[in-house]
């Protein structure tokens, strides 16, 4: 049972590709070996900047011989059919056997595959793997045609057991396999010969190469936190950066450096971003002040001066970088001081948001109008919300955001503060993009909420108006994320609103939009309503009299709004499903009036889910369904609606009378509770009907001989239906078995 060791040694592999590549190597090789008839006990793959390594343990020495019989065409079949069979089976015609079959004589091919030595299989699988490796991007070099992520220099491939190691012979476009490799580029010049994986890893370490990425990351984090701690500081954790840096070095050497005092006045986020993006430095924070004061860099070298030269160089580079950041910062502040944030954002008029939805400035105008409208319902002053909306995207024109796009919003906050904005406006600049991810924090400050909602709702209505909805996995404008954002904002802030009205009025909001290429429609390219806009461009515009135009577009808006609302409902279902609320429960609530009030909708769904989780609740559903079925059948049969007039005086059985009493009691509780949107109380009262309803069905025959009694009982069932449906549309609830 030999072990296999493969190392593909190349010029520097991009850090971000190393992990995936080592996994791919493992999968492709082990799959290939298994497919060729070999088994193995275990496999592990590794990567450093210059090598991909695979260790396979306990490989079978050779594949088993295989004998396979294949049934072919009948004797006398057309030549073409026989030739095809020969090709498929890989045998010659004279090798075919003729056997008697029920239907006559038939050709048989007997294919015997002898066992193959592991080395032959390994060579074949490795060559195939190298030639077809799924690099995200690969390249040619020199005069060759071989592709690899960067030039491939050597292939180490050995099979080893107690008796020793043996090179698996392989030659790929002139690169011949061996049992040798190289250590660290600068600290170990000699070629290394290896005899096993353990030997390989140990020799690499002596040659200043740590093979395992997690070990390198661990070394970095350990040294970095220790050094920071010794200086009374702490390293700002960044797992992504740690993984990346571990992929940039074979021998990590951690150095703690200083930031020039000149730059400590920059916003900490700017320091952090600049150091991370450009230099791959970790930020080091003073826990007392929260300020970023130093940095950690990771070198790939041990030097005679213990890294002093390297650190000095890194500090100098950082100073130049931060001088640039400072230049942007000061220029931006100057711009803000002289022309305010609106002035800073003026160039947005020339920046296209979407060619069918106008410029960023057009978009900002729409968001402003919407933010003003939403403001009262979230407790914000309309003027403040409008002010925040007007400037919230101005930082997109700043030099800092041009250089570091990831600082958008945050710079807006700093610049809004610098411009003297107050009362939640700067915060709104930063927070109006939130929430981005499903676990992102949701803004709660009123101005922020108003602008965040306006931003997202404008995006959704806009793309709905131009018919650019998400399809399948395609959602290029992140509309699902926007809808989820609206939902989370509404719920978190317990917003009570009529979303439908808001959306319709936004579709119908009057903004003159001028689009590229719209001149040909005889409207001078200008339209009044957002909803009119794309419809016009797509040739389904309105051609009637001007006085009726608004009405016409209102009709279109209604359709689009319904569609958009159901998109919200779909996202809500996904959102609530993650919280353990079943889709049929949500459907039962969506079917109720006021379903565009998401807070109300969720409250109702939560109460219903809670009720259905109880024994009473679950059984009530059975009772309701039974009542509803009997009633529906009777109504169909009789052609009348039993909806009124159940009278206690025609009740005969005690259970029947008891149900009357119970329904009266439930009514008395449910109606006011529903009025007060106290779904919990209403549903508890509804669930309390379970006992009387069950008893009724046990003791009472609905289809009584007396028509009067029967009619009265049907009308009684109708009361059950009415009460239950007033709480939620229980017909949507799937029956529990």
């Amino acid at each position, binding site marked *: 049972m030999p072990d296999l060791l493969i190392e593909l040694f190349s*010029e520097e592999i991009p850090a971000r590709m190393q992990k995936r590549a080592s996994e791919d190597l493992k999968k492709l090789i082990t799959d290939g070996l298994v497919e060729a008839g070999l088994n193995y006990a275990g496999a592990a793959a590794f990567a450093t900047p210059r090598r991909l390594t695979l260790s396979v343990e306990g490989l079978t020495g050779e594949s088993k011989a295989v004998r396979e019989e294949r049934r072919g065409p009948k004797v006398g079949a057309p030549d073409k059919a026989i030739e095809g069979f020969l090709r498929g089976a890989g045998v010659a015609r004279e090798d075919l056997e003729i056997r008697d079959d029920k239907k006559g004589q038939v050709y048989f091919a007997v294919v015997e595959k002898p066992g193959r030595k592991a080395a032959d299989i390994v060579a074949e699988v490795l060559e195939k793997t190298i030639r077809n490796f799924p690099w995200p991007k690969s390249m040619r070099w020199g005069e060759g045609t071989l592709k690899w992520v960067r030039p491939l220099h050597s292939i180490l491939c050995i099979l080893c057991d107690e008796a020793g190691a043996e090179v698996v012979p392989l030659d790929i476009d002139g690169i011949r396999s061996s049992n040798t490799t190289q250590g660290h580029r600068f600290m170990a010049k000699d070629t290394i010969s290896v005899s096993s994986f353990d030997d390989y890893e140990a020799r690499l370490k002596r040659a200043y190469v740590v093979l395992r990425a997690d070990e390198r990351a661990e070394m970095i984090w350990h040294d970095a936190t220790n050094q920071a701690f010794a200086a009374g500081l702490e390293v700002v954790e960044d797992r992504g950066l740690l993984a990346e840096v571990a992929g940039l070095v074979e021998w990590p050497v951690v150095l703690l450096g200083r930031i020039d005092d000149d730059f400590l006045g920059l916003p900490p986020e700017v320091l952090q971003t600049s150091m991370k993006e450009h230099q791959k430095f970790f930020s080091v924070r003073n826990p007392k002040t929260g300020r970023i004061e130093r940095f950690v860099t990771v070198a790939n070298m041990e030097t005679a001066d213990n890294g002093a030269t390297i650190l000095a160089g890194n500090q*100098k580079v950082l100073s130049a970088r931060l001088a640039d950041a400072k230049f942007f910062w000061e220029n931006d502040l100057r711009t803000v001081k002289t022309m305010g944030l609106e002035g800073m954002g003026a160039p947005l008029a020339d920046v296209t948001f979407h060619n069918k939805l106008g410029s960023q400035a057009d978009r900002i105008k729409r968001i402003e109008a919407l933010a003003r409208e939403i403001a009262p319902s979230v407790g914000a002053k309309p003027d403040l919300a409008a002010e925040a909306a007007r400037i919230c995207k101005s930082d997109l024109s700043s030099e800092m955001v041009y250089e570091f796009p990831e600082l958008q919003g945050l710079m807006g906050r700093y610049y809004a503060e610098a411009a003297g904005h107050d009362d939640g406006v700067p915060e709104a600049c930063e927070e109006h993009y939130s929430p981005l991810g499903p676990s992102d924090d949701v803004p709660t400050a009123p101005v922020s909420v108003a602008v965040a909602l306006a931003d997202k709702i404008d995006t959704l209505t806009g793309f709905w108006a131009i018919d650019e909805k998400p399809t399948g996995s395609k959602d290029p404008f992140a509309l699902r994320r926007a809808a989820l954002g609206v939902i989370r904002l509404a719920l978190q802030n317990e917003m009570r609103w009529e979303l439908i009205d808001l959306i319709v009025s936004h579709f119908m909001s009057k903004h003159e939009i001028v689009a590229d290429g719209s001149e040909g429609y005889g409207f001078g390219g200008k339209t009044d309503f957002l909803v009119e806009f794309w419809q016009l461009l797509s040739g389904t515009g309105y051609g009637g009299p001007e006085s009726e135009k608004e009405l016409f577009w209102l009709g279109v808006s209604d359709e689009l709004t319904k569609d958009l609302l159901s998109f919200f409902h779909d996202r809500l279902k996904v959102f609530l499903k993650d919280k353990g609320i079943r889709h049929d429960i949500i459907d039962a609530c969506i079917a109720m009036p006021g379903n565009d009030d998401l807070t109300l909708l969720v409250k109702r769904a939560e109460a219903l889910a809670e009720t259905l989780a109880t024994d009473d609740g679950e059984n009530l559903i059975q009772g309701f369904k039974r009542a509803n079925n009997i009633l529906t059948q009777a109504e169909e049969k009789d052609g009348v609606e039993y909806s009124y007039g159940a009278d206690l005086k025609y009740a005969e059985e005690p259970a029947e009378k008891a149900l009357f009493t119970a329904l009266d009691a439930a009514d008395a509780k449910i109606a006011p509770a529903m009025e007060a949107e106290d779904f919990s109380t209403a549903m508890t009262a509804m669930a309390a009907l379970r006992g009387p309803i069950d008893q009724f069905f046990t003791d009472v025959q609905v289809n009584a001989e007396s028509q009067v009694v029967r009619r009265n009982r049907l009308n009684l069932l109708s009361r059950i239906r009415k009460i239950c449906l007033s709480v939620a549309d229980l017909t949507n609830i799937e029956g529990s078995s």
Partner: protein
Amino acid sequence: MAEKPRSFQEIILRLQNYWAGRGCAILQPYDMEVGAGTFHPATTLRSLGSKPWAAAYVQPSRRPTDGRYGENPNRLQHYYQYQVIIKPSPPDLQEIYLGSLEAIGIDASMHDIRFVEDDWESPTLGAWGLGWEVWCDGMEVSQFTYFQQVGGHDCKPVSGELTYGLERLAIYILGVDHVMDMPFNDPQSTIPLTYGDVFKQTEQEYARWNFDVADTDVLLQHFKDAEAECQRILSEPADDPKTGLWIIMAHPAYDQCIKASHVFNLLDARGVISVTERQAYIGRVRALAKMCADAFVQTEAGGQAA
């Protein structure tokens, strides 16, 4: 280890010597405004076709948006690049390159030299390649690229391209803090000159012109003119009626492409190009670059049998 260089020009001279010693033809700068050494036809055009090629040269380069009025320690709107192009890329190009760092006084045992992923793409040239930026102690000292495609043509064989940002490299080697303080010639000379003596004033002049004064209408016209001339040159039949020779004017056409590209950079610095227009302009320059590349591969230097 050689003695450390003492001036900016000594670093350049040592690179010239080093690459001459490695068999490169030492060319002179191209006599046009370009954004990078790659634009020199010795790289752009010569990386096309099958003929082997090895050249090295200094290229003055202009990036109008990088102007900082001479204030930033290492950002300049006019700077020098040192460019090496070898086709086919030799298998030990990384080692040869590291030798050049040693030649200019970087002792690899004392520094942290790293090859960090940086895929190179020039949308204006319709070119891309894979490689790295080379870091020395966290500073980018060179770009190292294996060309895969130029002007829409696959590079076969592949050229290896090295680009050194000379000022930044020299600042580091010479141990000065600000580019303008860097000795240009030997500080022991009778008339010692710093980089600032040579370029500080021009950085201010050009920064002001680039950002605020350049006449955008004139520039827009220049762009259109260069574009039209490039197309006109290439539409001429190869048969020269005067000499009877077969002459495809790939280089004169390419000059116009370079010109259009630089004018675009100036317009960009003036901030008059919107995001949507930007793509369109880049596309127009790329179309020119592609036409020039198409023309060049029809020529003898482009690998066409004479």
